[in-house]
């Protein structure tokens, strides 16, 4: 017992030490001419891999910018903050950045619940918050003309994802009747609620609506019902494990080639496709970015990232944080000043040549970003284009 207690104490003090070290001394040492940018996200805990990706992406951008002479003669100095993906830890880390480190520009968080908690804090402190990874639509419902003037998001929302999938299904695949089959949690039900915003715009009706537990293994009764319902596609938001089962059982029910899978559920994952290739042919899914995206800027990033991190292929969060540091640098250059208010005004009106196209912010300070649409063809995911959809903001 005694050793266990001591070990826990040591672990706790180590954790405290790490978060303090991340927050204070490195920033305090920064030269006065540097532009300090906070990067806040889950650096420890279950979601730490995402925080690590974000940090690596942002670090690469800062290194590249500084190597090219910095911004307006200043070097960019990143400061790390750990939110563990919780609002409580995140707000503490953010307040440390603002009050102790006098940071005026912050990138974060990965997790939507933490980002939502930061919005009022940066508003009071007049600190510019740039989000590059949270997908909850309400973050920018509340920004810009929605209220908060200091929050910007350079990442597509779940609502845009839902809209783009339905737009493609309606316009390119001529699908107008869908059967809803989604996982029974915030993600699955949330995505369907957002999809319904677009049903009218794209002339889509739902013939049935079912939600399953992530552990459900038997879908045949539902699929039999869907078979006779006239549905042209199954609109599904779920996880890879369920997608495999649904696809396999669609094969059993003779639905292969007759009903397409659209939505999000790792449909383009090789393991999912292998479960039932004939069912997954035609499956549609949207992503914010992927390493095989074909643009010069995107390819340069992948190349530089792999060179910087021993051949590691960058994931979407590394990309969005790299891109957003570059976006911030462009806004500072445009403002001609490091004054946060001037940078905020510059950002609101910026036209930035991003890796996936031109980045502009709408009246809610939400970047109007494209998503890459994948469709499975002959057992391989194929990029069918880059699509945009305007967000239908709820009326105040």
């Amino acid at each position, binding site marked *: 017992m005694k050793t266990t207690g001591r070990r826990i104490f040591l672990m706790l003090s180590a954790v405290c030490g790490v978060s303090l070290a991340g927050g204070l001394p490195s920033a305090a040492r920064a030269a006065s001419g540097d532009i300090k940018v906070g990067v806040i996200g889950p650096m420890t805990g279950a979601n730490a891999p995402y925080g690590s990706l974000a940090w690596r992406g942002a670090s690469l951008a800062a290194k590249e910018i500084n190597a090219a002479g910095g911004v307006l003669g200043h070097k960019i100095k990143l400061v790390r903050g750990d939110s563990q993906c919780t609002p409580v830890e995140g707000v503490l880390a953010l307040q440390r950045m603002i009050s102790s480190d006098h940071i005026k520009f912050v990138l974060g968080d990965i997790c939507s619940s933490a980002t939502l908690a930061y919005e009022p804090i940066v508003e009071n402190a007049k600190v510019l918050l740039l989000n590059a990874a949270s997908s909850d639509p309400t973050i920018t419902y509340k920004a810009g003309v929605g209220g908060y003037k200091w929050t910007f998001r350079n990442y597509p929302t779940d609502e845009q994802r839902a809209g783009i999938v339905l737009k493609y299904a309606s316009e390119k695949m001529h699908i107008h009747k869908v059967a809803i089959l989604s996982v029974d949690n915030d993600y699955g039900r949330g995505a369907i609620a957002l999809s319904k915003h677009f049903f009218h715009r794209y002339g889509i009706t739902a013939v049935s609506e079912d*939600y399953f537990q992530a552990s*459900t293994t038997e879908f*045949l009764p539902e699929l039999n019902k869907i078979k006779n319902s006239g549905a042209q596609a199954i609109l599904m938001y779920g996880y890879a494990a369920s997608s495999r089962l649904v696809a396999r059982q669609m094969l059993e029910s003779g639905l292969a080639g007759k009903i397409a899978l659209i939505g999000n559920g790792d449909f383009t994952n090789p393991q999912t496709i292998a479960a039932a290739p004939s069912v997954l042919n035609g499956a549609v899914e949207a992503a914010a970015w992927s390493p095989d995206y074909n643009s010069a800027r995107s390819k340069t990033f992948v190349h530089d990232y792999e060179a910087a991190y021993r051949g590691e292929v960058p994931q979407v969060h590394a990309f969005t944080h790299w891109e957003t540091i570059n976006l911030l640098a462009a806004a500072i250059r445009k403002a001609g000043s490091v004054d946060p208010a001037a940078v905020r005004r510059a950002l609101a009106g910026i036209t930035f040549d991003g890796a996936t196209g031109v980045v502009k912010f709408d009246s809610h300070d939400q970047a109007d970003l494209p998503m890459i649409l994948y469709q499975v063809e002959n057992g391989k995911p194929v990029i069918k284009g880059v699509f945009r959809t305007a967000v239908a903001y709820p009326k105040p």
Partner: protein
Amino acid sequence: MLQNLLTDGLVIGSVYALVSVGMTVILGVLGQINFAHGEYYMAGAFAAWWAIDRLGLSYIESIPLAILIVAVLSLVIGYVVMQRLVDVSFDAGIIATLGISLLLQNGATLLFGGTYQVFDGGWLAPMRVLGEDIAQQRILIVLVTLAVFGALEWLVRKSSFGKQMRAVAQNVECCHVLGLDVRRVVLITFILGTTLAALSGVMTAPITMNIYGAMGEAITLKSFAVIVMGGMGSIGGTLLAGWVLGIMESLVAAYVGLQFRDAVAFTLLVLVLMWRPSGFFNTKARY
């Protein structure tokens, strides 16, 4: 459509029956509910996955190997734990089997990792039966279930070991007096029950596909409902209850909503107990 739903229900019901009957024979002889029962179903599926994925065996070869692995596993657990539960209180049995359940679940996660493994095997090509497509594996599940239940009925009613099982179920003290080796009967019955769960796991794995440590949890709960409905210890009752549950789940999933599927087992249990408080077949002294 209705015919499809009944067929699907029958297949899933057969899976439930096959797992539950193992729980039922253990309950009958030992007088304890085996709350780790779903974990032997998981172990069977994992062992077959391991044989196919790591040893490169075919599905048909993986079935006996998986059953053998689970038999050895339950020999150890039976010897160390289950034999001691003959004359102990019901709550001690619950704690012991729940503990085993945690050990097996986390053991599987420790050995094979927390991510889902994909089971690659079985005969999934559809066959046309009565004008409807159905995967061969599903037909096989029903046939195997019928064969197992036939064999069990014979074992319990006609064989010498069946007589011993029935004797232990009826009166343990009397068996001791007569010189019957109760611990041996308990151990063999336990291995029989768990290998039936493992058989069910291997037969179902090609359909459920995702293999992970906690996959047996839901199975344990449903088996519990099935054996209570079937009449705690009745073999024929377990088959009937399994089928009723499978078919009801299919109908509810299609006509009421998929989100209510997992509520069927216990709603049905309450209804059956209101109508027949001792289950479909009240044969407590069957063995």
